[in-house]
């Protein structure tokens, strides 16, 4: 593990980072390698274009939104710490964590995951997903064939169903009324944050699909 230690020493405040996010040293090293690979110009910061260079992201309907989520409002670059912090949202939930209301919510708890997802919708950060914001998301996730009227109807109905206090917007409380298991989907399932190994494939449970 010599290389791990040497890489770790290059990262400032790595202890604090590990504490905060819960990643193991091997994970951090792996993420650091990835960060450096993305940071082609070795500036120590990532810009949107660096994320944009991942061309598979361009094939994701909400890819650009995810990229935006890495950048705090007003910031134009992402340093390694923010990078790791954002990715930490997707760590598996610590089931054994004691529920201590005085401590801050860890980054990978269910609530934090949902909050992250919520922020993707809520661009203007007013704590609510307005109809326009929902429309934007729907637009990007539906095929081009769907017309504007249809989009608006879907958005209207969605808000109708989800909006409990009838303010024509979805607040975080309404958003999080999902079965707890669903939030767990926001967990990177296998191996992405694991140390580099010989195999890196994902496995899903065997499921028999209907044709």
């Amino acid at each position, binding site marked *: 593990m010599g290389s791990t230690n040497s890489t770790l020493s290059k990262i400032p405040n790595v202890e604090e980072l590990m504490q905060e996010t819960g990643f193991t040293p091997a994970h951090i090293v792996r993420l650091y390698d990835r960060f450096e690979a993305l940071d082609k110009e070795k500036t120590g910061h990532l810009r949107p274009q660096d994320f944009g260079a991942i061309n598979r*992201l361009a094939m*994701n309907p909400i890819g650009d939104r995810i990229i*935006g989520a890495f950048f705090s409002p007003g910031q134009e670059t992402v340093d390694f710490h923010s990078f790791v912090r954002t990715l930490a949202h997707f760590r598996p939930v610590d089931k054994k964590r004691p529920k201590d209301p005085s401590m801050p919510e860890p980054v990978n708890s269910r609530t934090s995951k949902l909050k992250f997802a919520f922020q993707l919708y809520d661009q203007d950060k007013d704590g609510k997903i307005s109809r326009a914001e929902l429309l934007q998301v729907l637009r990007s996730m539906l095929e081009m064939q769907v017309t504007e009227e249809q989009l608006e109807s879907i958005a209207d109905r969605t808000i109708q169903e989800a909006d409990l206090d009838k303010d024509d917007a979805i607040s975080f409380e309404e958003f999080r009324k999902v079965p707890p298991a669903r939030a767990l989907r926001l967990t990177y399932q296998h191996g*992405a944050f694991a140390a580099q190994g010989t195999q890196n494939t994902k496995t899903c449970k*065997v499921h028999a699909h209907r044709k």
Partner: protein
Amino acid sequence: MACRTCLWLLGTTFFTCTVRLVVEGTEVGATQGSHPEPGVVGSNHSQAGGGHGSSISGIQIVTFKWHHVEAPYLIALWILVAGVSKMVVELNHNLTSVIPESALLIIIGWILGGIIYGADKMQTFTLTPTVFFFYLLPQVILDAGYFMPNKLFFSNMGAILVYAVIGTCWNAATVGLGLWGCWLGGAMGDIDIGLLQFLLFGSLIAAVDPVAVIAVFEEVHVNEVLFIMVFGESLLNDGVTVVLFNVFDAFVSLGGAEIDAVEIIKGIISFFVVAFGGSLVGIIFALLISLLTRCTKNIQIIEPGFIFILGYLSYLTAEMLSLSAILSIVFCGICCQKYINANMDERSVTTVRYVMKVLANGSETIIFVFLGISAIDPAVWVWNTGFILLTLLFIFVFRFIGVFLLTWILNKYRLVPLEFIDQVVMSYGGLRGAVAYGLVAMLDENKFKEKNLMVSTTLIVVYFTVMLQGITMKPLVTWLKVKRAAVTELTLAEKIQNRTFDHMLVAIEDISGQIGHNYMRDKWHNFEERWLCWFLMKPSARKSRDYIFNIFHQLNLKDAMSYVKEVRATHKVRESHDNLILYLQTQDIVPSVCLDMHEQDLTMRESEDFNAHHLLQQHLYRGRKQHRHRYSRSHLETNRDENEVQEIFQRTMRSRLESFKSAKMGVAPAKKIQTKHQKKDKPQKVRGEGTFSPFLHVRPHSHPLIGNVMCMLIKPFRGRFSSALFIQSSKCGGVKMECHLVNIQKQKSRLGLLLLIPAFGTSTFKKGK
């Protein structure tokens, strides 16, 4: 219902009549020995004699020259019968989803065999090893190799090899030794057999069969890793099987006394030689094919033929050198797919794909039908309860033990462990098939006194695995699956959320880089890009290979076209040879997704009943998790996934472009980009595309595009040509731009124009990582 029965009756009557005719025709006439050429059928009947001519007076207007056409006629007839059987089987989809097609075909084979036997009192048509190994198997394996998902295959290669080599050896050894032990113990009564023969039998019955595996896994959709494991194993274990078979065959011939350490060592060495030699032969032929397709531009009409011929030659060459023929043809298919798909014309590629499927499907059908027919032959049936039952037991049990053991070891080294369900499916899915039967039929009766017993046992094993395990596979998988909570109807919000979460996960995977930076993989990739592609691919293919490129190609085409229309109207463009020239083509521009399509579809949709759920169901992008790369014998993949990906890609690029422009120009949707010579207008009619973009945050610097564009010129070529023109800008405020100019076919109009599509990202963008 009536139609089905009609067809069925028709089929059988047709067949019976033909057989009768054949039989009556062949019964007359002198013996002429066995057929010199191998036909689809290994007929034991004698050929009809020729001599009718001498005793006839006068000219015969019509003669019945059966012997003249006998061999090809029978072959064609059997292929037809197999095809009709498949048609009959596929009549009822409910049936085929419960019982796999292969099982049904075997049943039909039984019926047909019964008819023939009834007519002939002996089995005239059986599956002979020659026919099987030379004419029926190669195309099935070539199909498997050509359509193999390479990335998946090679990234799991380690595990696959472990299962194929160690697993097969384990199976062979345990089954052989187990049976031997039981024989010694007297469970089988008195049969003339020895340890070596048991080991030989074990080695031929141990191998998982690719034909059977595919046939069953078609119905049961498992995850891709599991699939590639079983499938890869079934293909690669041929190397082991061949070696074991030959080695034990030689040992049996030598006799037990001659075997010493030297022979055993020779056996082990022969394994490596056979396996690697076979693969090498395949790779050489793959190189040949790729090189050949590089030069076949002028004979596109027969391009597809080369693939099949050379593939078959690779099989035969390996067979000639006593190497593993299956490995050879598999690696031939695997290695050449990328290059021939790039080099050949699209129509040729389509032809190859379809013909490959036709041949493979046809062969598979024939194989299974004949497996059924060959059973109806009392001459080969020897029943020995102990032997047969013990064999069944051992292959089943030892397969499970072997898989679980190996997986336990492998899981220590794998990042993603194989789960329990996967292991069960893998064990249960270890089907034996025609390869085992072919091998056992090849045994020499003089050396193997109990050949018939082995043949019978093999047949029973094949039937057991293909039919019973095939039928029960799906219910087993369903039963093992962890029961989810009762599925309530999801609300719209929940559906959208689910899909959003899926996309999010995929995006995070991509950002965090799922596949680690594997040194070897990177090196291979670089080597391949630099040398192999240069060597094996046509220059034009190389350039248009880049995926992003193709997208931009299409984006550019549309914009270029609209620009040309505008420019023509205003007569502003002068012909200019020494600067930037873009030649347009008007034919053949069919972007796979028309970005303005939604406008045309408006009227269509208005009258429909609106249903939000339905819309969501139909039109939500599916995301990469649900794009399953499935190998299928009977279905060619549709392009829906590709279309979706392209559509998303284009939209993303558009929105980035928009936000970049508005950032740079400081003007919301800026339409004009000033260039050195010409103006360009980009009318954007997209559906209010993403105003949100992180790229907006890029602080616009003051340098406009003017004067920062250095252009290079590529000489226009005649004829079909597609290449890139790279315009590198100097750094504009920290944002490097890359412009792709796509130079396509020369058009008669000779209009020159400049098209600038600033693309985001750094220079790595074009490399299509």
